[in-house]
């Protein structure tokens, strides 16, 4: 895991110092050079591929980006390249270039927003600094260009920025290494395993919850580290999680989980499919399928994406149906409804995580134990 390695931390500390030391007009070049330098040293092929994608993206904005067919061709090329690498990776042929999934979505955002003329005037160095931004290049969030450009222009170093950034980085490392790695993996899970066959259902249920929480805490921790380091560099990037396990329905869950990805998919895929077809359920299903494929091009993630898509579509249908009604619930009934909504959402998410976190046989074994109570 790159983000946990001391070499990455060294690059980060050096980039923060250099970023603040450089005069304003050299700052974007410094930011881009550090991330590119990191990629060249760590994984040269990744650096070459991402630099090529950056060149195509910039060229399309400057030349071909004025006409719809040119923009469509560039978006298809960018997403096609990502898809090709994902398919090759799934079949064991290639390793995915570092940060490519996040990077590609940033490129597509830039191409589409530049076509819509919604980006502020900017230079090549500012564009490169946005794409090659070390804090977010490996694990997101998929931040947006206008906010990045705003911070590039106006940030001043101060005690609050240092405090905020340092705190988020520490929370991130604590979530990944202490709560997830030490507390859950080293202390809690052996205890759960120790419950044994006599308590097979309880043991499996607690294991499912602990694994689900680990999945969440690791990613939320990485996001905290990225957001904190970005803050220390003077940038405020989009939040990625907002207490997702407190959600009372699956639509709310996807508004709180991996927010930068879901907002990207909502803006560029859901909105497009909906405007073309006027079918919200189809838009939801295709959006969730793409989110599944974004993680991994395998059957299990297709099934996972479709399951979440059907759940989101079902939830939207139910909410529309309720909105049409006139009956008002009493307070206890509303509270019971909220609890039931949370309970169903939480367990649906945890059960779906089992399917993608384990191989097929182990996932079926867990489902069987949870259904029948026995091993």
């Amino acid at each position: 895991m790159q983000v946990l390695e001391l070499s990455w931390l060294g690059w980060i500390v050096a980039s923060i110092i250099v970023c603040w030391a450089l005069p304003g007009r050299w700052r974007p070049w410094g930011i881009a050079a550090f991330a590119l330098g990191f990629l060249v040293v760590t994984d040269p092929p990744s650096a070459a591929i991402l630099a090529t994608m950056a060149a195509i993206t910039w060229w399309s904005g400057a030349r071909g980006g004025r006409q719809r067919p040119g923009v469509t061709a560039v978006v298809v090329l960018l997403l096609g390249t990502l898809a090709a690498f994902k398919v090759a990776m799934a079949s064991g042929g290639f390793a995915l270039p570092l940060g490519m999934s996040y990077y590609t979505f940033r490129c597509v955002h830039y191409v589409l927003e530049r076509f819509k003329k919604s980006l502020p005037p900017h230079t090549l160095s500012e564009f490169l600094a946005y794409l090659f931004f070390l804090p977010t290049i490996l694990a997101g969030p998929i931040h947006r260009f206008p906010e990045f450009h705003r911070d590039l222009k106006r940030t001043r170093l101060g005690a609050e920025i240092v405090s905020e950034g340092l705190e988020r980085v520490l929370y991130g490392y604590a979530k990944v290494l202490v709560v997830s790695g030490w507390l859950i993996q080293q202390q809690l899970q052996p205890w759960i395993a120790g419950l044994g066959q006599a308590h097979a259902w309880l043991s499996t249920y607690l294991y499912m919850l602990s694994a689900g929480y680990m999945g969440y805490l690791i990613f939320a921790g990485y996001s905290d580290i990225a957001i904190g380091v970005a803050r220390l560099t003077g940038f405020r990037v989009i939040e990625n999680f907002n207490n997702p396990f407190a959600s009372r329905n699956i639509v709310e869950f996807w508004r709180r989980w991996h927010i930068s990805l879901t907002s990207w998919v909502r803006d560029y895929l859901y909105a497009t499919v909906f405007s073309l077809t006027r079918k919200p359920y189809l838009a939801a299903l295709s959006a969730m399928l793409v989110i599944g494929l974004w993680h991994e091009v395998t059957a299990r993630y297709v099934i996972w994406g479709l399951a979440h898509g059907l759940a989101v579509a079902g939830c939207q249908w139910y909410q529309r149906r309720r909105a049409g009604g006139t009956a008002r619930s009493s307070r206890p009934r509303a509270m019971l409804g909220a609890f039931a909504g949370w309970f169903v959402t939480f367990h649906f998410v945890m059960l779906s995580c089992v399917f993608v976190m384990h191989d097929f046989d182990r996932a079926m074994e867990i489902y069987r134990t949870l259904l029948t109570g026995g091993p």
Partner: protein
Amino acid sequence: MYGWLLPRVGRRAALLLTALWYAVLVALVVLLAAEPKAGFRYDDL
């Protein structure tokens, strides 16, 4: 935390409390760090 404490307890106490809280977090991370292995794909981590 510093920004939240500043208007409530003053600059000096805010600095002290913030530094203490960070020291506790750093100690926890240094003493208990263990790299977790989770099966969920975050893609490039």
